[in-house]
C-alpha cells in the first residue's frame, strides 16, 4: 500500500474561505532525489496544523518550501505552487524576501544571533524592514517576548547577549524574533526536539495561545505533542501526503493503513 491514495476528510467546519495557505502539486528535489512528489494540502487559518511522518518522509522539506527557504540550498529545485491568500508565492512577480516576511520560521535548533543582545535579536526583523522608531521597537519587542512566554524571564536583561540563555529560552527568543515581524503564518520545524520536557511544555503553551493571531504549521515527530496542541494533522510518507484531517479523526479513526501503522508505533 505504498503511495496509497490520499484520504482527506471533508470536515464539516473546513470550508475553503478559511484556508490561509495551500500547496498545489508541490514537488521538490534535492540533487537527483525527488523529496516531494506532488503535495496538495490546505492549511486552515488560525489553527495549528501538525505535519507528521517517519524520517525521510519530506516533512521538513515541505515546510521549507512554504517560505521559500528550500531553494536556498545548493542543488535544490521546487515545482508547483504554494498559494498564500490567493497568490502563488512562487510566481516570478513575487519577491521571496516579502514572502519570508509574511511566513516566518522557527528552526529545529535555536539559532539566535550571537553578536546581538536579546532585545536586538527580537527586533532584528523589524530593523531590516526599516523601523527605527524607538518606541515602536520597544513595544513590539515586549509584545513578541510576551507572546513567546519569555518576557518575564528576560525583561531586566534585554541588553545582555542571547547566548547565555538556556536552550528553551533561546528557542522562545527565536519564536519572539519570528513573531516580531507580524507574519501571518508561522512555520515550526520540530522546535522542541532538542529541549527537555519542561521547556517543551512552555513552548507548547505559547503555541496554543498564538493561534488566535497566527496560522501555525508545525512539523513534529512527537505524536503526543501533535495530539496535545494541533487542530489538524497531516501524515506524510516517502514524499507523499497520505492523510489529512482533524487531529482527533487522524488519531482515533485513521483512514489509511499507513497512518494507523505509524500511530500505533509499528514503524519509525
Amino acid at each position, binding site marked *: 500500500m505504498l503511495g496509497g491514495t490520499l484520504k482527506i476528510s471533508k470536515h464539516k467546519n473546513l470550508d475553503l474561505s478559511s484556508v490561509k495557505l495551500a500547496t498545489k502539486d508541490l514537488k521538490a528535489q534535492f540533487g537527483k532525489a525527488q523529496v516531494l512528489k506532488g503535495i496538495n494540502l490546505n492549511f486552515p487559518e488560525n489553527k495549528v496544523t501538525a505535519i507528521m511522518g517517519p524520517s525521510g518522509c519530506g516533512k521538513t522539506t515541505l515546510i521549507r518550501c512554504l517560505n521559500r527557504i528550500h531553494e536556498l540550498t545548493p542543488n535544490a529545485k521546487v515545482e508547483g505552487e504554494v498559494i498564500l491568500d490567493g497568490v502563488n508565492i512562487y510566481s516570478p512577480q513575487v519577491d521571496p524576501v*516579502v514572502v519570508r*516576511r*509574511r511566513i516566518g520560521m522557527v528552526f529545529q535548533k535555536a539559532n539566535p544571533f550571537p553578536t546581538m543582545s536579546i532585545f536586538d535579536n527580537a527586533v532584528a526583523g523589524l530593523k531590516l524592514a526599516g523601523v527605527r522608531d524607538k518606541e515602536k521597537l520597544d513595544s513590539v519587542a515586549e509584545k513578541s517576548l510576551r507572546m513567546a512566554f519569555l518576557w518575564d524571564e528576560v525583561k531586566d536583561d534585554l541588553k545582555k547577549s542571547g547566548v547565555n540563555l538556556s536552550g528553551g529560552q533561546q528557542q522562545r527568543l527565536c519564536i519572539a524574533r519570528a513573531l516580531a515581524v507580524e507574519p501571518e503564518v508561522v512555520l515550526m520545524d520540530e522546535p522542541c526536539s532538542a529541549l527537555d520536557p519542561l521547556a517543551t511544555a512552555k513552548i507548547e503553551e505559547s503555541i496554543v495561545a498564538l493561534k488566535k493571531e497566527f496560522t501555525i504549521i508545525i512539523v513534529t515527530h512527537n505524536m503526543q505533542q501533535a495530539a496535545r496542541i494541533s487542530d489538524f494533522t497531516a501524515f506524510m510518507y516517502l514524499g507523499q501526503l497520505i492523510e489529512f484531517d482533524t487531529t482527533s479523526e487522524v488519531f482515533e479513526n485513521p483512514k489509511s493503513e499507513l497512518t494507523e501503522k505509524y500511530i500505533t508505533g509499528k514503524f519509525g
Partner: protein
Amino acid sequence: MRTSDLPASISLWRKIVNKLMTILVIVAVILAVIPLLLILGDVVIRGAPALSLGFLIHSLPTSTKGLSGGIGPAIVGSFTMVGIAALISVPIGVGAGIFFSEWASSRLSTISGFMNDVLTGFPSIVIGLFVFVIIVLPTKQSSAFAGGVALSFVMLPIIARTTGESLKLVPMTLREASMALGIPRWKTVIRIVISTGKRGLLTGILLAVARATGETAPILLTASTSIYFAKSIFQPTASLTVFIYNYGTSGSASWQTEAWGAALVLILIMLGLNLLVKLTIGRNPIGARMEL
C-alpha cells in the same frame, strides 16, 4: 480574517543596495585577478626574448652589449642554497610537526606550535639579518652556506606546520589499533608517518621549497652574489632572485631584458612546483597555501 498592513514589496532602497553590493563584490574579484594576469603576461612577453639554451647555461653577463652571458651560476646557486636549506629544515620541521601532532596536548607542543605559526609570517629580511650576525660576521664571509641556513629558517615553519596538520588528519583508530596490538609507541608513530604517505609530508616540503626559491632578502644579505659558478659552498654565490634584483635595477637595457628572462625562468619553476603540490594533494584537504 487578519488583514496585513505590510507593503507588497520591500523598499526600493534595499533592492538598490543589494544590487549595488553584488556589483561591488564582482568588481573586487576583477580587481584581484587583473594584476596576476598582467604580471604573468609581462613576464612572458618581456622575458621570452632573453631565453635560449645558452641563457640557461652561461655565466653571468659582464658586458652590457647585447644579450651575452646567462644565468647558469644563478640557477645552480639557487638550487644549492635551497638544497642546503632543505637538508636542515626538513628533518627538524618534520620532527617538530610529528611532535605537534602526536603529543598535541603537551605544553611544549602548544607553545612551540604557536611560535611556529608566528614564525611563518615573519619578514624574511629579519631572518637574513639574524644569519648575518651568527654566521657571516664571525666567518667574515658571505657564503652559499649562510644563504642556505637563512632559507632553512624560512622553510622550517612551513614544513613543521603542514606536517603537523596532515598527521592530525590520520584517524585515531589507526594509532589505537596499533597500540592495542602491543606495538610500541615509537613504532606506531613511524607507522602513522608512513601511512599519511608522501602526500602529507611532501606537500609541505614542496610548498616550503617553492617559497624558499622565491626569496631574495635573506640571501641578499648572507650569500651576496658572484658572477661565476661557486666552487665551494663557503663562498658567495649568485642566485636567481638576487640576479633579477641586481640586473633588473641596473641601467642597461640588455641586462634588464635578461632580468625579465630570469624572472620567466623563476616563474616557470614556481608554477612547476605549485603544480606538483596540487597534483600530490588533489583538492587541498589540509588547506595548505603558498604564502601562509
